[in-house]
C-alpha cells in the first residue's frame, strides 16, 4: 500500500508539464536512436549530457531514461525492414523479422514487436516498482566489504556477458579499473598518475570518456564506413494488423520474454542483448514448429523483442537501489545523475522520493507513449532512415565537442575526448567491446574504496571480509561464474585442438 501511494505521488510528479515534455522528448529521441543504425543509446545520452544542464534534474533524468528504454522499441524497425539492427539487442529480431518482411508480413512483425515491447516493458516496470525499494532498504545494511563484493562480481560477470571474447572484455574492464585510479586518492589525498598536470587530479570524467569512446568513436565509424544503399519498404497503417493465428502464437512468447528479460536484467552485463538471445532459444524450444525459426516465425520476433524491453527496466534496479551500473547504458545514466548532483543508491528513495518515484512513474507513461508513437507513426519513422548521414554526422561531431568543452570549460577535456574517440574507433575495428572499460571506470573507485576500507574494518583479514553473510553470498555467485568461464575456456581449447565442435 505504501508503494502504491508513493507511486501515485510519482505520477503527480511525472505529469507536471515540464516532466511530461521531457518524457515525450526522451522516448521520441530513443525511438530515433533505435531506428537509425550507427547511433547507439550510450553515445546519444553522452551527447545530450551537456544539454541537460539547464534542465530541472527530475526532467533531465526522465528524458535520459526515456531515451534508454525508447531505443529498444525502435531497434526492431530496421531489423525487420532492412535486416540491419539499429541496436545490438535487436540482432536476433533480424532472424525472423526480416523473413517475415520478405513474405509481406512486415506490418504484423512491427506491431507484434511494439505490443510485445509494451507488455514486457510493463512487466519490467512493475518488477522495478516492487523490487527496487526493498533492495534499497536492504542495501542500507551494506558496508564496504559488501560493496567490494558487488563491484568485483559485477566485473567478473561482465567479462563473460559482453558477447565478445571473455579475455578481451576482462582486459577492457581491467583497463577501466586502472583509469579509475588516476587522480587524487580519496583515502590519502595523494595525487596518482597525474604527472604534474593539475587537470588530471580530477581523474577521468565518466562523461568525457563516454563522449569520446562512444560519441566520437561512433561518429568516426559511421563517417568512414563504405555504405551500400538499401531499399526501404513502405509500411502502411492498414498493414499493421496481425492475423488471428499470429496473435495466438505471439501472446505466450511476449509474457515468457518479459519474465526472461527481467531475470537477466538483474545480472551484470548487456542484459538486453543476452535476454533476447535467451528468449529466442527458449521460444524455439517451446514452439510446436521449431523448423519455422529463421524463416519468419512470429514467436522469434515477439519473444526477443519483449525480453529486451523487460531487461531494460530490470537493469534500473541495481542502478537505483545500489547505485551500481551493470551495463554501459546504465553507467552513462549514472553519469547523468551525477552531473545533476544526485547519487543513486540506498539513500535515493528516502532523500529524493519525488525524483525516484517520478522517474518510475514516467516509465509507465513513457511505455504507453512508445506504443502510441510506434504503431501509427511507424511509416514516418521509417522515412527517417533516409536521413543523409553526411550532413548529420559533422553536426553531431561539433555538438559533442562543444558539449564536452562545456562540462568543465576545459580544452584539456576536449583533447581527451578526441584521444578517447580515436581509441574507441580502433577498439571497435579490432573487436574490443568498449562498454566494460566504461563500467570498469565506474566500478573501479567503488572497488578500491570497498577493498581498502573493508580490509581496515576487518583488520587486514581477507577471510573475515569475504565470509560476511552478504558478501559471501555475492562472492559465491562470482566464483561459480568464474569457475564456469574457466572450465568452458579449457573445454573450447581442448575441442579446438581435437578439431571437434563442442
Amino acid at each position, binding site marked *: 500500500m505504501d508503494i502504491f501511494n508513493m507511486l501515485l505521488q510519482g505520477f503527480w510528479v511525472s505529469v507536471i508539464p515540464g516532466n511530461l515534455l521531457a518524457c515525450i522528448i526522451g522516448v521520441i529521441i530513443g525511438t530515433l536512436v533505435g531506428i537509425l543504425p550507427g547511433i547507439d543509446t550510450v553515445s546519444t545520452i553522452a551527447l545530450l549530457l*551537456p*544539454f541537460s544542464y*539547464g534542465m530541472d534534474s527530475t526532467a533531465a533524468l526522465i528524458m535520459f531514461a526515456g531515451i534508454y528504454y525508447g531505443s529498444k522499441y525502435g531497434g526492431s524497425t530496421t531489423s525487420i525492414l532492412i535486416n540491419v539492427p539499429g541496436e545490438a539487442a535487436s540482432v536476433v529480431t533480424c532472424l525472423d523479422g526480416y523473413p517475415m518482411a520478405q513474405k509481406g508480413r512486415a506490418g504484423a512483425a512491427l506491431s507484434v514487436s511494439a505490443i510485445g515491447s509494451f507488455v514486457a516493458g510493463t512487466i519490467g516496470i512493475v518488477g522495478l516498482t516492487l523490487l527496487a525499494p526493498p533492495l534499497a532498504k536492504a542495501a542500507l545494511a551494506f558496508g564496504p566489504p559488501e560493496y567490494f563484493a558487488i563491484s568485483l562480481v559485477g566485473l567478473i560477470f561482465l567479462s563473460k556477458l559482453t558477447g565478445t571474447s571473455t*579475455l*578481451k572484455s*576482462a*582486459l577492457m574492464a*581491467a*583497463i577501466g*579499473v*586502472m583509469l579509475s*585510479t588516476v587522480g587524487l*586518492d580519496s*583515502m*590519502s589525498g*595523494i595525487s*596518482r*598518475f597525474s604527472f604534474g598536470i593539475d587537470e588530471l587530479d580530477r581523474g577521468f570524467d565518466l562523461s568525457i570518456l563516454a563522449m569520446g569512446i562512444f560519441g*566520437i568513436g561512433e561518429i*568516426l565509424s559511421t*563517417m*568512414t*564506413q*563504405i555504405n551500400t544503399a538499401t531499399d526501404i519498404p513502405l509500411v502502411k497503417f492498414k498493414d499493421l494488423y496481425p492475423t488471428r493465428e499470429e496473435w495466438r502464437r505471439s501472446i505466450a512468447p511476449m509474457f515468457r520474454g518479459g519474465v526472461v528479460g527481467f531475470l537477466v536484467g538483474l545480472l551484470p552485463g548487456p542484459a538486453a542483448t543476452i535476454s533476447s538471445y535467451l528468449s529466442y532459444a527458449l521460444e524455439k524450444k517451446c514452439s510446436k514448429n521449431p523448423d519455422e525459426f529463421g524463416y519468419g516465425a512470429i514467436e522469434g520476433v515477439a519473444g526477443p523483442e519483449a525480453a529486451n524491453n523487460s531487461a531494460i527496466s530490470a537493469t534500473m534496479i541495481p542502478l537505483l537501489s545500489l547505485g551500481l551500473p551493470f551495463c554501459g547504458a546504465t553507467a552513462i545514466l549514472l553519469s547523468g545523475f551525477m552531473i545533476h548532483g544526485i547519487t543513486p543508491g540506498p539513500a535515493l528513495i528516502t532523500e529524493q522520493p519525488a525524483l525516484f518515484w517520478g522517474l518510475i512513474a514516467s516509465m509507465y507513461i513513457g511505455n504507453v507513449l512508445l506504443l502510441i508513437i510506434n504503431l501509427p507513426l511507424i511509416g514516418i519513422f521509417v522515412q527517417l532512415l533516409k536521413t543523409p*548521414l*553526411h*550532413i548529420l*554526422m*559533422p*553536426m553531431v*561531431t*561539433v*555538438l559533442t*565537442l*562543444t558539449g564536452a*568543452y*562545456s562540462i568543465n*570549460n576545459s*580544452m584539456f577535456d*576536449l*583533447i581527451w575526448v*578526441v584521444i578517447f574517440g580515436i581509441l574507441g*574507433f*580502433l*577498439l571497435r*575495428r*579490432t*573487436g*574490443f567491446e568498449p562498454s566494460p572499460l566504461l563500467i570498469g571506470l565506474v566500478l*573501479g573507485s567503488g*572497488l*578500491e574504496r570497498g*577493498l*581498502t576500507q573493508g*580490509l*581496515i574494518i576487518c*583488520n*587486514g*583479514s*581477507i577471510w573475515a571480509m569475504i565470509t560476511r553473510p552478504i558478501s559471501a553470498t555475492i562472492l559465491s555467485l562470482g566464483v561459480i561464474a568464474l569457475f564456469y568461464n574457466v572450465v568452458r575456456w579449457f573445454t573450447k581449447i581442448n575441442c579446438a585442438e581435437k578439431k571437434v565442435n563442442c
Partner: protein
Amino acid sequence: MAEKIITLFFLLGSSSYLFFAQHFAFGTLNSPKSGFLPILSGILTLLLSLILLYKQLRSNKKVVLDKVHWTKFIFIIIGLLFYVSFLNSIGYFAATFIFLFYLLKVADAAGWLMPLLVSFSSSAIFYLIFANCLSVTLP
C-alpha cells in the same frame, strides 16, 4: 594484425602504468595505501594483455573487418586536431564554422553553397544554444 597492435599497445600501457604505480606505497593488508589497487590492477592488466597477445600470436584465425575509408579517417582526425588547437585562438564561432564546412566537404557534401550555408547557420545556432541558453563561456 591491427588486433595484435592494439593488444601490444595495452601491454606497453599496463607495463608503464605498473612502473609508475610502484612509486606509491602498497601498504599492508591491515592498512592498504594508495598503491594497493594500482599495483594489483596493473599486474592483472599486464597478465591479461600477455595472455591475449600469446593467444592471438598462436591463432591462425583471420579476423574479417568491415572496409574503412582510411583517407576520410585521416582527414577527420586532421580536422579534429585543427579544431582543438585553434578553438581558443580564433574563437568558437570561426573555428566551428571552418571545422563544420571542412567536415561536410570531407563527408562528400555536394556543392559549395549548401555546405557553406549549413556550417554558417549551424555554428550560429550552436553558439546561441550554448552561450545564451546554457550560459556556457565559449572561447
